[in-house]
């Protein structure tokens, strides 16, 4: 589904990613772990198409096609979803309207009929169950006044609604207490499907107790220094990032 080849990325002329290679197949869950400043968030942003990140070298293939020329909205319409580490607040625009507008753009792109407000509400109520969210949230402005945990839950709700092929979760565990972490993780697990790939980016191993990855990669200094199966995460937790820096 996704193939990253020798990807180099700079921000303000500073090279952050220095040759990333990664292959993710449909149905797989990959985790990227790394210390602060290793380039984890940069990787998620560049995949989603943030304009501040400049690809200086390498390529990214998504479903066999060159991803990099696509605008962020076109990547979303083609099935890429990024759950943000810091979701943005949008005052005055309620969650239901926002989600319907987004989903309808994606559906229009796919040539599907748009949802009207009534049908969408029924659809949305089902999706709320995925993250155990109170229906009152759908009439509140997007993320405004939400706690950290509620924002992260809302990101996973968006993922459930937009039904991406490739979901990228940037530090979805940060700022969550243990109960919120469990709910959010269970939500992600419910959204696991054979035709969907998930890329988790995290600093800590604890998220991986709840969402079991098929592959774990360690990102240090803009490069993947080690890849392995899920036990790599436990080793990292025990020995720390210095162990792989070597």
């Amino acid at each position: 589904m996704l193939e990253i080849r020798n990807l180099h990325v700079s921000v303000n002329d500073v090279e952050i990613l220095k040759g990333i290679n990664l292959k993710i197949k449909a149905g797989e869950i990959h985790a990227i772990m790394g210390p602060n400043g290793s380039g984890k968030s940069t990787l998620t942003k560049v995949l989603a198409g943030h304009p501040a990140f400049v690809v200086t070298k390498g390529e990214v293939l998504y479903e066999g096609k060159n991803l990099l020329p696509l605008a962020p909205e076109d990547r979303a319409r083609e099935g890429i979803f990024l759950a943000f580490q810091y979701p943005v607040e949008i005052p005055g625009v309620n969650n239901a309207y926002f989600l319907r507008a987004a989903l309808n753009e994606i559906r229009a792109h796919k040539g599907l009929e748009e949802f009207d407000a009534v049908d969408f509400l029924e659809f949305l109520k089902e999706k709320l169950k995925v993250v155990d969210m109170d229906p009152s949230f759908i009439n509140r402005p997007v993320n405004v006044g939400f706690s950290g945990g509620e924002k992260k839950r809302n990101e996973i709700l968006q993922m459930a609604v937009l039904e991406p092929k490739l979901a990228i979760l940037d530090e979805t565990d940060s700022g969550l207490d243990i109960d919120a972490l469990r709910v959010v993780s269970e939500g992600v697990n419910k959204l696991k499907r054979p035709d969907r790939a998930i890329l988790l980016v995290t600093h800590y191993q604890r998220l991986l107790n709840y969402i079991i990855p098929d592959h774990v990669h360690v990102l240090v200094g803009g490069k993947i220094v080690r890849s392995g199966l899920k036990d790599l995460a436990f080793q990292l937790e025990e020995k720390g990032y210095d162990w792989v820096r070597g």
Partner: protein
Amino acid sequence: MMVQAVEKTNYLAEFQKRKSRDAFSALRQAAMAAFGELGFPTRDHEDWKYTNVEPIAASLFQLNAPAADPIALQKLEIGNPQWHRLVFVNGVLSKELSSTENLPAGVKVESLAGAIQSDSIIVEEYLSKIADYRVDAFTALNTAFIHDGAFVFIPKNVILAKPVHLMFVSHSWEGGIVSQPRNLLVAGEGSSATIVESYVTPEDHAYFTNSVTEIVLGKNAQMDYYKDQKESVNAFHVGSCAVRQEKASRFYSTSISLGAKLSRSNLVIDLQDEGVECDLKGIYFVTGTQHVDHHLFVDHKKPRGTSRQLYKGILDGHATGAFSGKILIHKDAQKTDAEQINKNLLLSASAKVDTKPQLEIFADDVKATHGAAIGQLDEDEIFYLKSRGMGEETARALLTFGFASELVEKVKLDPIRWELDRIFWTRLQEVPGT
């Protein structure tokens, strides 16, 4: 200056011709003299630093505006059928378009021209006592030509359930007219009313509106006041509103500025007694080469007053804007609680706004804050929306709506809020693919 000479002469010549004979002849005379002294302000004047009124001074407007043409006015949506209504065309009351049936006993909603005759005691008590023509050329000019406008009187303890709509229509076949409505709104002790003042036109001509509204709130009175400025994008609008608040009165205003090539809205609040409250909101949304200027003065004279100002502006294209708000807290005004916020969103690189908050405090036990911001849409916010599949235009429209909504959602009068919602949503719907 050459320009000044031409234009002052025009107004003076017309003034000489008029010679109205009533209780206000001396007032008009004095105001004309003041206008002659003051002249149109230039940008050297501190209060006019950001607004150049030379295009007004340089235009020879027609001072005797033609009467209403019913056919042209058909294009215009005449107010809300549920409201009491006075319609003025080119500054003169149109009885046919007005509707003032079923007013509660003692309530007066009528033309000032009539009230000068029939309610001379009240009119004489307040007219030109609240707005000071000696310090402002436009108020002086309006006062020199006092003829018609709205007169609203709410007696003691009367709660007026339906809003009163004062609608000012500018209309002519060629444009180039000036209208100078003069309004006097008097709310008696313990009364309550909602007033909507709107400025509209069926055409897109160049013309000039120079309005003055004086408002008196008696002890414990409440007024919800809306100013809805939707002049032609080629018009000039200078509108001054001066408010006197007596003990424990409450004044809630919402100013909406969408139209005019150049608009200036002055709002002066005289919190002259204890425990008064005012809440002043404003929203402006301009584009093209429009210029919009809001000038506020909140004058806290006595203890325990509360004032709030929240003005939000959206500027697109080559539009320019200015906001200046002064809060003055006198020595006696202990326990004052004053707040002022002005936020501006620039949607294009060519739009520009100047904002100048001012606080002058002479009391020692007060709470006073102010804040001003000028910003563009946040790139990270746009990226967030795009990452959900929304196009650039949709993302920008949605965030613009969000910026306005903080204020729009607080508008109490449903039809006004719906209209604002519609204006912003329409912008959103115009975006292809939404």
